[in-house]
């Protein structure tokens, strides 16, 4: 704390304006990606081609849905914990959270459309009635893994989460207009409800979207393992957007102290992810039961470089880069660490999907187009949402605490 934060008064009218160039480039990415996705549909023929096509879309859709959900979780968790440190940049997780309706709709398309287009979903073996009838293990799972219940779960829980996110955002914007504490109190209620539904649903997302790909296999660590991946990616994305805004000359009230705390979250949850991932692996490795090791056999045999690579990118790199205090306070170091974490966790989701569906490591046009499409959409939605309100919330009760935050 070398200088007093009150020496920079809040510019109460600081507003993010999306430049024409940003608008053009993000929409161009969306257009290119969408054209690529539609066009490459005709490139991937036959059953194998369809498996590849929908695996790519599912991986990217789940990854971005996770980022959006993690941002909403960030808001809800900080509300319930009476957190004040993040207030100066709380518009960023809010804006990313408003991406959730879009990602949820697209994910629903990826989950539902193939069921109508083919006789079963190419990614999910359990949607194939022929196969289920001849497979006692899959037949035993039908009370849970059946299409009507699958979509009821999705629509109900995602709908509730989107509704609660939308209400938190609405109250937060109203709070800017009227200096009234009741918006904050009402958000506390919405945030608490959000956490309850999120806690119930987050494991279900992992089982439904990812674990059911390997229908015969199950792991009790899987839900938390996927959540930790979502969460650490979400924090890395929030950090990158905050740094981007600072580089653009916005958010001058965000100091090294706020970045330090974001860095701490990235560091700590990278270790948390490693802990869960390793626990899941070690118990299966130790017990050495064929039904369980089949999952890792598929990953170890054909994806070995990626299998070790994710430990390098998601554990060793953030652990060593973000360990010291100075590193967490430098924007360049944080940017490098956040990019490694995001790439590493995308690889993690790739490794959850591809060995069970495509069987061999493949990265080509469809994966690239899906990523470009979602990246463009993410930039456009986030920037558009950031432009809708003051970048620094005006009447948030913890604003002063946040301005004086020092670590």
């Amino acid at each position: 704390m070398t200088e007093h934060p009150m020496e920079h008064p809040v510019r109460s009218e600081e507003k993010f304006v999306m430049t024409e160039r940003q608008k053009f480039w993000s929409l161009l990415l969306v257009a290119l990606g969408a054209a690529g996705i539609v066009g490459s549909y005709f490139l991937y023929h036959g059953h194998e081609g369809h498996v590849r096509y929908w695996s790519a879309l599912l991986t990217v859709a789940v990854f971005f849905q996770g980022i959006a959900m993690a941002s909403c979780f960030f808001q809800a968790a900080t509300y319930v914990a009476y957190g004040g440190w993040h207030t100066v940049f709380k518009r960023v997780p809010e804006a990313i959270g408003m991406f959730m309706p879009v990602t949820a709709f697209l994910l629903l398309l990826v989950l539902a459309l193939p069921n109508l287009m083919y006789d079963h979903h190419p990614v999910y073996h359990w949607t194939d009635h022929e196969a289920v009838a001849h497979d006692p293990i899959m037949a035993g799972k039908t009370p849970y893994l059946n299409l009507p219940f699958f979509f009821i779960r999705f629509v109900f829980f995602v709908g509730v989460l989107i509704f609660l996110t939308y209400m938190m955002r609405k109250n937060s914007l109203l709070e800017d207009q009227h200096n009234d504490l009741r918006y904050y109190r009402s958000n506390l209620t919405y945030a608490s409800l959000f956490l309850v539904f999120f806690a119930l649903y987050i494991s279900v997302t992992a089982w439904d979207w990812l674990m059911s790909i390997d229908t015969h296999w199950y792991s009790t660590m899987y839900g938390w393992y996927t959540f930790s991946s979502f969460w650490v990616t979400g924090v890395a994305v929030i950090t990158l957007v905050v740094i981007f805004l600072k580089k653009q000359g916005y958010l001058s009230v965000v100091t090294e102290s706020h970045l330090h705390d974001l860095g701490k979250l990235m560091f700590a949850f990278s270790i948390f992810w490693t802990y869960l991932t390793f626990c899941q692996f070690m118990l299966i490795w130790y017990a050495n039961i064929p039904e369980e090791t089949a999952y890792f056999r598929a990953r170890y045999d054909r994806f070995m470089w990626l299998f070790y690579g994710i430990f390098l990118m998601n554990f060793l790199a953030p652990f060593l880069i973000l360990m010291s205090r100075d590193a967490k306070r430098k924007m360049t170091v944080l940017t490098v660490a956040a990019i490694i974490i995001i790439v590493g966790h995308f690889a993690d989701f790739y490794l959850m999907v591809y060995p069970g569906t495509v069987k061999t490591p493949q990265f080509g046009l469809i994966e690239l187009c899906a990523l470009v499409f979602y990246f463009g959409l993410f930039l456009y939605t986030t920037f558009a949402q950031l432009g809708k309100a003051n970048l620094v919330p005006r009447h948030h009760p913890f604003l002063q605490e946040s301005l004086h935050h020092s670590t």
Partner: protein
Amino acid sequence: MKHYLLGLFDDEEVLLKAVDYIKSHHLRIHDVVTPFAVHGLDQKLGLRESRLHVGGFWVGAAAAITAVSFMTWVFTANWPIIFGGKPYFSFPAFIPITFEFTVLNASFWMTFAFLVLCHLWPGRFRESLDPRTTSHLFGVVFKITPRTTEADLQRMREVLLQAGAVEVKERMMEKHY
């Protein structure tokens, strides 16, 4: 026998301003004793950053290497036994023990190093300069050496009082306080 001059303050905001004021009069502050950590005081006093965490990192790294190499030696060379069909060198099985040994060593040695840095080892009792600096007062400490003249002492007292000290007193100590 060590000789100190102690200026006592009753507010940390006054204390922070007083440090600047005293430094502007070119007096060398020996130490500041406070009942709790005061934000921003380290920077004002120009204290160098603690190297305790750097030591912690290297102790941890050494412990990790020790644990892995010891287990490797035991299970491959000294007493090789096959457990559940696993190879002698079963690295995943070593990781939990390596982790525990690393954390245990890093935390224990950092605690011991911290106690030694604070002059607290078994049998050592530290007398405070003024017991009130452990509850509600903040003390700025000047060291008085044989070369300190009566005029210097008088000036120190004046500057302390001008800076807002509620009390100024001299203190003789047997050992490091």
